[in-house]
C-alpha cells in the first residue's frame, strides 16, 4: 500500500531522514519508535506531502504522493494541533470534516455515537471551542476526525501521550478493533514501547534518520526494544 524508495530529507545539509526502501503492505499495523529527533514526524510529514523530499519518493497505491491529491480521500491523519481547527466547536469541526468526505449528517451522528465511549462523554454536544479543551481531549478530537472519513490508511503521531490511563486503554482497544474488523493500514509512532508493541504487528526503529531495526512483533519484541533503548 505504501512504498518508500530512496527517501531523503535534509535541513541545511544535515540529513534527518534516509530510508532506502520500505514497504508497508495493506492492512499492516506499522509502529514507529525512536528517540526525539530520530525523524518520526519528518517521515509522517513526507508521507502526507506536507514537506518536500530532497530525494526519492513515497508512493501510495502506486502513485507518488508529492503534488498529488488522489491519496487524500482515503487517508486519515493526526500529527499535532495544526490538524485541528481550534476556533470551531467539536460538533462544527466533525460536521466540516464529514462533509469533506461526503458524509451525511446521519453518518456523522452515527459515527460520533460510536466514539462516545472513547470521548468519555466530554466532547459530544459541547459548546466549547476546541482551543478551550485540554490537550488530551484535543487529541481525542483529532483522532476521531482522522477516522471520520472511513480511511484505509491511518497515520497517528504519538497518539497515547497526553491521554489519561483509561483513555489509553480505550484507544488501544479501538485501534486493535479497527485493524481486525476493517483491515486499516495503520502507521503509529510512540514513545511508549508497551503500547506500540501491543497495537502494532511490525515495529521499525529509527535512529538519526536511519532504519536500524525492522521487526515483526513477537513475544520478545518488548524486551528487545527495551534493551535497545536502555542507557
Amino acid at each position, binding site marked *: 500500500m505504501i512504498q518508500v524508495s530512496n527517501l531523503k530529507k535534509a535541513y541545511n545539509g544535515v540529513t534527518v531522514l534516509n530510508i532506502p526502501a520500505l514497504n508497508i503492505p495493506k492492512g499492516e499495523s506499522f509502529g514507529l519508535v525512536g528517540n526525539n529527533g530520530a525523524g518520526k514526524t519528518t517521515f509522517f510529514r513526507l508521507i502526507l506531502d506536507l514537506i518536500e523530499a530532497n530525494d526519492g519518493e513515497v508512493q501510495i497505491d502506486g502513485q507518488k504522493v508529492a503534488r498529488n491529491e488522489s491519496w487524500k480521500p482515503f487517508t486519515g491523519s493526526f500529527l499535532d494541533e495544526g*490538524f485541528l481547527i481550534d476556533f470551531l466547536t467539536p460538533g462544527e469541526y466533525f460536521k466540516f470534516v464529514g462533509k469533506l468526505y461526503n458524509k451525511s449528517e446521519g453518518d456523522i451522528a452515527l459515527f460520533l455515537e460510536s466514539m462516545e465511549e472513547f470521548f468519555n462523554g466530554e466532547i459530544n454536544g459541547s459548546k466549547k471551542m476546541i482551543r478551550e479543551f485540554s490537550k488530551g481531549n484535543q487529541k481525542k478530537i483529532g483522532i476521531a476526525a482522522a477516522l471520520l472519513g472511513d480511511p484505509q490508511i491511518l497515520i497517528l503521531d504519538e497518539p497515547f501521550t497526553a491521554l489519561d490511563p483509561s483513555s489509553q486503554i480505550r484507544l488501544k482497544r479501538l485501534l486493535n478493533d479497527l485493524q481486525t474488523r476493517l483491515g486499516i493500514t495503520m502507521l503509529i509512532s510512540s514513545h511508549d514501547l508497551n503500547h506500540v508493541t501491543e497495537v502494532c504487528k511490525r515495529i521499525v526503529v529509527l535512529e538519526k534518520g536511519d532504519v536500524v531495526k525492522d521487526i515483526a512483533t513477537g513475544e520478545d519484541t518488548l524486551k528487545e526494544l527495551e534493551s535497545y533503548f536502555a542507557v
Partner: protein
Amino acid sequence: MILLELVKHEWQKGIRSSGFYKNVAVSIFLGVFSLYMGGLLFFMGFSLNKILEEVPGGTPMELFNGAMLYLLLTGLLLRFMMQQLGTVNLNSYQVLPVNRSLLINFLLLKPLVSLANYVLLLVVIPFAIRSMAAYYTGGVALRFVVAFELMVWCNSLLASFLKRRFGSGLLSFILVLVAFGAIFLLEYLHVFSLFAISRALFGFIVMNPIGLLIPLGAVVVAFLLNKWFFAQNFYPEKFNSKLQNSRTATADLSFLDRFGVIGELISVQIKLMLRHKRTRTLLFLSAFFLLYGLMFYTNEHYGDGMIFFCSMFMTGILMFIYGQWSISWDSAHFDSILTKNIPARTYILSNYYLMLAFNVICFILTTPYFLFGTKIIYMHLTAFLFNTGCNIIFLLFFATFNNKRVDLSRSSAMNYQGTTYKSFLIVLPIMFFPILWVNVLSWLTSLSVAMWSLAAMGLVGLIFRKPLLNLCVKQFNSRKYIIAQGFREVE
C-alpha cells in the same frame, strides 16, 4: 532586586521573539513612518499658536485649556479601542516567592513607559514654549506640560481599568460612543459646556503653583481604582475568564450548506473572522472605512485619481483586508487544509468566492454614495469590476508569498504580527496603479476613457477567470511546502 528582574524579563521577551530580527524591513518602514509623523507633530506644535490666534474666543492657551477635556475624552476613547492590556505571565510568577502587589504594580505601571504616552509632548512642548513661556512665565509653561503628561497617565490607567472592568466588547464601546456624542451635542446646543469647565479647570491648574495637585490626584485615583480591581479579583483566572469569555458566535450559516465543500470552507472562514478578536476588530474598522467617501466626495480639491482610489477602496475594503492574508488566516490549521480531503483548487475557489461575496456586499453598502452624482456611479461600477476581475486574482496569487504565521490569538488593531515587507509589496501596486492609470489617461484623453479601460480590464479578468484561477492553483501548489513550513514556526 526583583523589580529589575521583571523589567529584564520583559526586555528579553521583546528581543528574543523570533520576529524581532526577521522583520527588519517592516521595522525600517515603520521607523521612517514614525519619524515622519513625529516631524509633522513637532511642526504642528510650533504652528499651533499661530493657528489658534486666528480662532475667536480667547487666547491660544485658553482655547487649548478648553479643548483639554475633549482631548482627554477622545484619548480615552481611542485607548479603550486600541490600547492592549498589559499582561505578565502571572501564573509563572505566582508560584514563585514574588510579592503579589509588586507584580500588580509592575503590571499597572508598565504601560506608562510606552512611547505612545509621550508622542503628544512633541506638540505640547513647542506650544507651551511659544504661547505660555512667551506670555507668562517659564513656570506656567512647565506646569502646563507636566499637567498634560499627568492627564495622559491618568487616561492610560483609567482605560486599563475600564477595559478590565467592563471588557472591550462592542456593547461597551457603543455605550462610550453614545456618552461621548451626548456631551458633544449638549455643547453644540449650548445646554452644557464642557469647554467652559475645562477652560476654568486647566486655567486654574496652570496658573496656580498648587494647581498640579489636581492632575496628580487624578492619577492617584486612577491608580487606586486599578488596585481596587485587582484586590477584588485576586485570582488571575477570575478576570481572565471575563476577558476571554467564550461566546461561541453561532451565526446561522446553514444556507451555505447548499454549496458543498466550497460552502463549508467559506462558513469556516466566516466563523474564523467572527471568533477572533483580531479579525473582529478589522471587520469593525472596515465599517469605518465605508465612511471615507463622505470625506473625499464632498471635497472639490481631490483629483479624479484620488476619487477613484476612494471608490475602489470602499467597494473593496473587505476584499483588501481579507485578501491580503487570504491564506495566512489559516496558519494555525494549515496542515489540516493540506491533509484533509480538500483539493487545492477547491480551497482557492472558496477564497475566490468569499472575496467575490465581499465585493458584492461592499458595493451594495456603498450605493448611497450614488446620490453624489453620475460620476460616482460610474466610478463605483468600474471599481467593482476592476476589484472583482483583477484584484481578487492578484491578491490570491500574491498571498502565496506570505509564509509568516499569522497568530490570531493575539488581538487588537495596530497588530503588525505576521506582517512582512511582502505585505506592503502586495498592497502598494493594487492601491496605486489605478490612481496612476486614471490620472495619466484622463490627462492624455478623458476620464471616461480611463474608466472604460479599467472596467474592460476587470471584464477580461472575469471572462478569463478559469485559466487565471488555474494559475493561482498552480502557484499555490508550488509554494505550499514553503508556506506550510513558515506557518509551523510559532513565534
